[in-house]
């Protein structure tokens, strides 16, 4: 008895889960119940079909996309079959009469060559075959014919021809949008790549000059600094991966500071407070070094006697909070605002703006830099980095780049 009860309960639960899954699989395609006049209903129906067919096409003209689109578009025509061709290939076919593939491909080729819609009769020996006639319309993206939409049916009909042409045009628009999407994604990628911070030529020059000054007086130290410099530049110039770990980023900051210290000696005092939990967090490549460089510049190069810099990384549950604080000359808040908006003179604060922009780009506007400063009040820069964000990984798993 109880076994039965449990079996029934289990089955019910199972069915419930299944239903939930299906529901999710197909976001309900039901419309409202009260839709007014038949014309309105038809309009709605058409629009709805189109909107359902659009998403797959936005991925571009692939076999998978074509299959889904054709299946969803066929109800618009009410004819026997619908096909999509491109590059001398049949991408998708929905409905009977698949044995006319060759005819359809042939027509597709003609459409591609002429760029015009055409109708054609289909010769079939099978008396049960519903396909007697067809229309093919070109799919054009940027004045180039990519393929053809082919509609097959029983009897010739002018309205079907027109519908074919219109639907083909609509599909073309979707494909153009897909092209646009791709371009935009590429643009974002390029933008991020362009935004990758670069170490300043001044720094390279200064470091080499400092090392040179040690060559005679303290060759051992010069050698060490040179190795440090080599490591630092190797890290900064690396090509792969937009992201790295906080641990690696901190190591690079360490080398940077070592080189700076060689130049300024005891005038620079750095305190580091690190919660070790946040060291594996993925961060945008070279996002700390520009901030530290900024702090060093404010502290040392602009007159302060003894410069104190505190770098801290704290664990805040789902985010890591990184704070870089200096006791340097600080900055006029309005000037900083202009710099962050990209209106300042190109030479100053470019690092700050760059990091701010990349943070916003990657994690959203909630994660831009928060800077507290005033003239003569030092500067405190806070960055909050989420421990997880889709698509953000510290490095590709493994590259056979032959390093090491």
């Amino acid at each position, binding site marked *: 008895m109880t076994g039965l009860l449990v079996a029934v309960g289990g089955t019910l639960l199972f069915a419930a889960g299944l239903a939930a899954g299906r529901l999710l699989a197909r976001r309900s395609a039901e419309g409202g119940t009260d839709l007014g006049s038949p014309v309105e209903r038809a309009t709605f129906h058409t629009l709805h079909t189109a909107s359902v067919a659009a998403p797959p096409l936005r991925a571009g003209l692939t076999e998978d996309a074509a299959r889904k689109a054709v299946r969803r578009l066929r109800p618009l025509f009410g004819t026997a079959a619908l096909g999509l061709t491109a590059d001398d290939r049949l991408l998708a076919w929905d409905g009977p009469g698949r044995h006319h593939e060759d005819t359809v491909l042939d027509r597709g080729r003609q459409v591609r060559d002429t760029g015009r819609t055409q109708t054609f009769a289909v010769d079939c020996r099978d008396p049960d075959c519903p396909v007697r006639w067809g229309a093919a319309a070109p799919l054009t993206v940027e004045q180039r014919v990519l393929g053809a939409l082919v509609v097959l049916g029983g009897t010739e009909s002018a309205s079907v021809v027109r519908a074919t042409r219109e639907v083909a045009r609509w599909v073309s628009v979707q494909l153009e949008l897909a092209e646009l999407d791709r371009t935009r994604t590429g643009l974002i*990628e390029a933008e991020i790549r362009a935004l990758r911070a670069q170490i300043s030529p001044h720094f390279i020059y200064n470091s080499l000059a400092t090392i040179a000054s040690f060559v005679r007086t303290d060759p051992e130290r010069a050698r060490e600094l040179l190795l440090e410099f080599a490591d630092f530049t190797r890290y900064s110039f690396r090509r792969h991966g937009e992201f790295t770990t906080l641990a690696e980023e901190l190591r690079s900051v360490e080398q940077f500071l070592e080189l700076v210290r060689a130049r300024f000696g005891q005038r620079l005092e750095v305190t580091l407070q690190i919660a070790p939990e946040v060291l594996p967090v993925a961060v945008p490549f070279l996002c700390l070094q520009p901030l530290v460089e900024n702090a060093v510049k404010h502290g040392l190069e602009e007159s302060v006697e003894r410069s104190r810099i505190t770098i801290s990384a704290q664990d805040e549950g789902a985010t890591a909070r990184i704070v870089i604080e200096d006791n340097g000359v600080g900055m006029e808040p309005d000037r900083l605002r202009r710099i*962050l908006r990209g209106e300042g003179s190109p030479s100053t604060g470019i690092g700050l703006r760059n990091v701010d922009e990349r943070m916003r780009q*990657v994690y959203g506007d909630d994660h831009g830099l928060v*800077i507290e400063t*005033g003239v003569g009040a030092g500067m*405190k820069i806070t960055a909050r980095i989420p421990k997880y964000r889709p698509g953000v990984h510290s490095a590709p798993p493994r590259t056979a780049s032959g390093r090491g």
Partner: protein
Amino acid sequence: MGAPGTPRREVVTGAPRASHRPARPVRVHAADPAADPLAVQALMRRQLRLGAMVFGVLAGGTGLLPLAFSALPDPAVRPGSALIVWAVLGVAVYPALVVLGRWYVVRAERVERDTAADLERS
């Protein structure tokens, strides 16, 4: 920072990005050229086999224990049998688990090293 004489600081943030496109919608699916799908598949299969083996030993070992215990003679008759249960469940299980786990780690790392070497070579 509230020391007297310290000039006041003001909070400054950058302007929100002009376009309201979602932050980094791009999930880069570009497969890593070095991550040959076949190699990944082979690695997965080896690791899964290894994991399943350890799990099998665990399930077989501990899963059969309750049955084995129920087959032990009644402690009222043979008091020693209760002691066996205590010794096994109370003590012996734990070192066995650690040894099994350690063995798995050594093997799994070997599999990974092999794969890494193969990828490097190709």
